[in-house]
Each structure stands twice: as structure tokens, then as C-alpha cells.
């Protein structure tokens, strides 16, 4: 078990390192000279200025040297400074990351809190009109693009209830109420796909558990149906649902980019979107590495906990 965690952890580090190298090299190999792009607008820029700026940014060094400098600095927590603002990338990300994590966690909560009851209801009332309706909702939920859902929610809440989200984003520390209200819609729009996936998975897994021989044994012992369902079936059927969560985290992280830009939430998503457009390489690089690291870390935790929940899994 410990060996498994260590091995997975080491592998996760390796993948983060590969992500770093991949993004770093892609950024450098892509056409579009940063310095020229940065200084192109300024009038009267000569070649010396371009060269000076490039030297300043370390872009005149050989590629591998740049990579080595970047990696060693990154290991110390230094991702360089933003081309745009000149601030340290680590500080910028540290400021933005909590907002995105908050949105992600809220979306995950939406997925689980709505998905689990829907799945249970669907399975318990198998083939009833309620089940059919819920299944239709699930398929629709899986297919509806989260940004369209977000737009629709804003539009119709405004049209029908004359309600619109706060115009200015407030951090939880400034104004918790305003913050939560602001985050509620994007979190819901982000969480719907997860909700649908969880409901579907839970329904089929619960139905499968209910048909399994061990449930028949429990019933044969004369346990009341309620006990059978709650203490035996549901617990076992939640195991595969759990493994879905790791997958959902990827979708949610990706979704934050677009929803943050719709709802004007200053998180990582907005940061990377802006930085990509401005070709602020250090920030882009830092963001992608952090996204990758978060994703890998969550999946590691999910896999390890998966083994705790389901003792049949052997870490060979």
C-alpha cells in the first residue's frame, strides 16, 4: 500500500515534469517571437533594443540551457516573472488559484449532492416514469455544453426574475455572501455534467449490486428491504462512482477556463486565457504546470482512497 502510494507519487512527479518540458518546448518552438510581439507596437524599436530585451528575458540562451534554468528555478518554486506585469509568476498564481479551486470544489459539490440522490431515486424506482425522466435529464446534462448552460441561466434568470449576478467579483474575505452568489451559477453550470455522469453511473451500479448474489443472501436472511438498500447495496454501489470523481475533476478544471471568462471571475482560467493571448509565456507555463499538478494530485488521492473504500483492490 505504502509502496503503491510512493510509486504513484513518483510517477505523478514524472508526468508533471514531462508536462513542463512539453509546454516549455512547445512555447519555444512555436513561431512568433515573444520579444518582437511585445515590442512590435512600440514605435522606433531597433534591433539592439530587441536583442537587449531578449537577453534580459534569457531568451538568447540555448534552448536546453533555458529549460535547465527554468526547471531548477521551478523546483525552488520560482516560475520566473510575468512578461506583462513583471510580477513573480508564483505570486500571480497564488493569488488566482484559490478562486479557481473554490469554483471547482463548489462544482464538485453540486455534482455529488445532486447526482447521488438522482441516481438512487432512478435505481430504486427502476423503469418508472420518474426513472425515465431522470435518465433523460442525465443524458441531456451530459450533452449540454456548460458555457451555453451558463449563458442560458444568466439570460433567463434576468428575464424572468430580473436577477443578475453581481457585477464585480468579491473575494470570500471581502464579502462572503456576494462571493457565493457570484459563484453559484458557474458552479452549477460546471457541475451539471458531473451530476449527470454520477447519476447514470450510480443507477447502473446500484442495479447491478441489487442483482448480485450477496444481496440475495442478505434478503434471504430476512433483512428488511430498507436495511438491504441502505447498509449493503448503496455502500457497495458508491465504489465505482468514486472513481468517476477523478475524471470529473479534469472536466471541471477545463470548464473553469471558459466559465470564469463568462462570469468575470478572476481565477486561473481567466489568467491563462489572458496570458495565452498576450503570449505571457512564464505565466502560461506556470498555469499549465499547476493545472497538471492539481489534476494528477487529485487522481492520485482518488486512486488511493479507492483502495481504502474497496478492499478488493490490491496494489500489486
Amino acid at each position, binding site marked *: 500500500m505504502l509502496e503503491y502510494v510512493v510509486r504513484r507519487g513518483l510517477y505523478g512527479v514524472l508526468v508533471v515534469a514531462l508536462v513542463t518540458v512539453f509546454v516549455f518546448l512547445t512555447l519555444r518552438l512555436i513561431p512568433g517571437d515573444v520579444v518582437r510581439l511585445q515590442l512590435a507596437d512600440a514605435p522606433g524599436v531597433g534591433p539592439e533594443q530587441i536583442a537587449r530585451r531578449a537577453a534580459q528575458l534569457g531568451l538568447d540562451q540555448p534552448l536546453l540551457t533555458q529549460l535547465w534554468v527554468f526547471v531548477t528555478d521551478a523546483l525552488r518554486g520560482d516560475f520566473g516573472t510575468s512578461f506583462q506585469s513583471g510580477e513573480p509568476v508564483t505570486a500571480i498564481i497564488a493569488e488566482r488559484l484559490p478562486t479557481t479551486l473554490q469554483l471547482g470544489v463548489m462544482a464538485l459539490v453540486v455534482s455529488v449532492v445532486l447526482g447521488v440522490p438522482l441516481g438512487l431515486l432512478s435505481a430504486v424506482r427502476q423503469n418508472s416514469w420518474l426513472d425515465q425522466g431522470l435518465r433523460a435529464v442525465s443524458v441531456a446534462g*451530459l450533452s449540454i455544453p456548460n*458555457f451555453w448552460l451558463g*449563458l442560458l441561466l444568466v439570460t433567463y434568470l434576468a428575464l424572468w426574475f430580473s436577477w443578475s449576478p453581481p457585477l464585480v467579483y468579491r473575494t470570500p474575505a471581502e464579502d462572503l455572501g456576494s462571493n457565493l452568489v457570484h459563484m453559484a451559477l458557474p458552479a452549477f453550470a460546471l457541475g451539471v455534467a458531473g451530476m449527470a455522469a454520477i447519476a447514470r453511473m450510480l443507477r447502473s451500479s446500484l442495479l447491478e449490486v441489487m442483482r448480485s448474489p450477496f444481496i440475495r443472501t442478505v434478503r434471504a436472511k430476512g433483512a428488511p428491504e430498507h436495511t438491504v438498500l441502505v447498509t449493503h447495496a448503496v455502500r457497495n454501489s458508491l465504489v465505482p462512482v468514486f472513481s468517476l470523481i477523478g475524471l470529473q475533476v479534469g472536466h471541471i478544471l477545463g470548464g473553469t477556463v471558459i466559465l470564469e471568462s463568462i462570469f468575470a471571475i478572476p481565477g486561473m482560467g481567466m489568467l491563462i*486565457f489572458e496570458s495565452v493571448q498576450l503570449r505571457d509565456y512564464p505565466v502560461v507555463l506556470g498555469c499549465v504546470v499547476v493545472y497538471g499538478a492539481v489534476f494528477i494530485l487529485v487522481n492520485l488521492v482518488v486512486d488511493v482512497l479507492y483502495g481504502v473504500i474497496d478492499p478488493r483492490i490490491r496494489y500489486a
Partner: protein
Amino acid sequence: MSEVTASVPLPARRPAGGRRAMRLLRRQPLGVVAGVVVVLLVVAAALAPVIAPFDPTTQHREDFLQIPGGPFLMGTDDLGRDIFSRVLYGARTSLLVAVCTLAVGGVLGVAIGVVSGYFAGGWLDTLLQRVMDTLMAIPGIVLLLFVAALLGPSIRNTVIALSLLVVPSFNRVARGEMLRIREELYVESARAAGCGTWRILRRHGLPNLLAPILVVTSLMFAIVIIAESALSFLGIGTPPPTPSWGAMLSDGSRYMEIAPWMVVFPGGALTVAVLAFNLLGDALRDVFDPKQSR
């Protein structure tokens, strides 16, 4: 040798494969409906120039932000362009991008998965799978944003970015299937018959992979269509004035309180398309489920 001479081969007895598929499809009414919707989408996209009442880029200046109805079935946008025509042409863009992406990314992903699965545990497998893990560790939109923005907005670059997104999924399915096929007795039998690796992969690997790959392809269609819209929505996908659902949503988001139809129709078309491909994929999965088919 025995004295068998010209033994006249009887007419080929084809198995009732088509009929069996039809019967299985009949058990999947939702899947059939989804299939019909997909066909309609393809027809609409192909015949957009014939069906569309207006040119999708013509600006009817005096008729901007018209509500749906009259000559403008789905209303007009802020520049007076007919939304119905733009939705039809948008289907064209979406399907074109999706088909190209799945051709590029699907072929690449399947090739990587098949080779990797056949040589599972070897250095080539290890190398390829590390690359795939790397691609998968970056959330989809982040990867797309990154690649598409660096390459600049164009349909070709969107296809490149989206291909990177789908390669790992195809790889995963193809590799998993290949791991299973590799252990099949018929592969050992083929080796005993003198088949080389390449021949085994081509004659036994690929054909036996097709069913699961078809399922993934359908599900990936859904994902690619959403992703293309998301990119266009962010302004780094299909460049204007080419009509695309994502860009239409982006335009509409500025007018959603006064002209919600600008958001409702392209988004609806997007959702229906995604839904159809998802349902079709689910139905195909059920049909090809080995537990059911044999």
C-alpha cells in the same frame, strides 16, 4: 494429395450480419433516433447552401435583432444576419472540424494504441504511454487554449489542437483492446502460421478493434463538437466570418437579455448534435457489447 479436382464452389453464403444489426438496433429506439438526427445533421450541413434561405454572411442592416418568425425563421443577429442560415452553415463548420479531427487524431491514436498494446511492457510502449499520460494530464480546454492560441485561429489549427485532445482517448481504447487481442489464441495461431507482427496487427488487430473504436468515435464526435464551439466561443477557434456555433454564442452573449434567440438557437443546435452523438455512441456500445452479441 487426394484426387480432388475442380470442386465447384457453391455460391457464397453470407451470414445475416446486416439483418442481425438491424434487429439489435431495433432494441435501441433511442439509438435509432440519434442515428437519424446524425444523418439529418450531415444532410443539413451538406445541403446548407440549398436549404439556407439567406447567405449566412449577408447583413440585412434594417432587420438587425429581428425576433424569430417571418422570413427569418430563427431571427437575426446584431448585424442583421439570418440565424437559421448561420446555424445550418455552423453545422457545416462543426462537422467538418470534427471529421478532420477524428481522421487525424483517431488514426494517430489508434495506431499508437495498437502498437503500444501489442508490445505492451516494452520500451516503445513505455515511451508512447508516457507521452499520452502527459497529454492527458493537461485539462482539455487548457491544452486547446494553449495550442490553438499559439498557432493562431484557423480551422486547420483548430483541427491540430483538437487532434491532440482526442489522441489519448483513442490510444487508451485501442491499447486496451489490443492487450486483450494479443492474448487471443488466434493470434498465437497466426504466429504459428508464419504471420509477422505487421501482418498480425493489420489482419487480426485492427479488424477486431473496429467495434470499440466506432463507439469511441461517436462519443468523441460529441466531445470535439463541444470543444470546437468552446474554442470559437473564446475567439480562438474558427475565425469570423465563417459561421460557427461557438462564435454565434459568443456574439449572442452580449445581447442575451434583449435577443435571447441569438443564444438559444445555436446553443440548441449544438446541444442536439452533441446529444445525438452521445446517444448513438451509447447505443453502439450496447450493440457491440460482447456479452450481448455472443
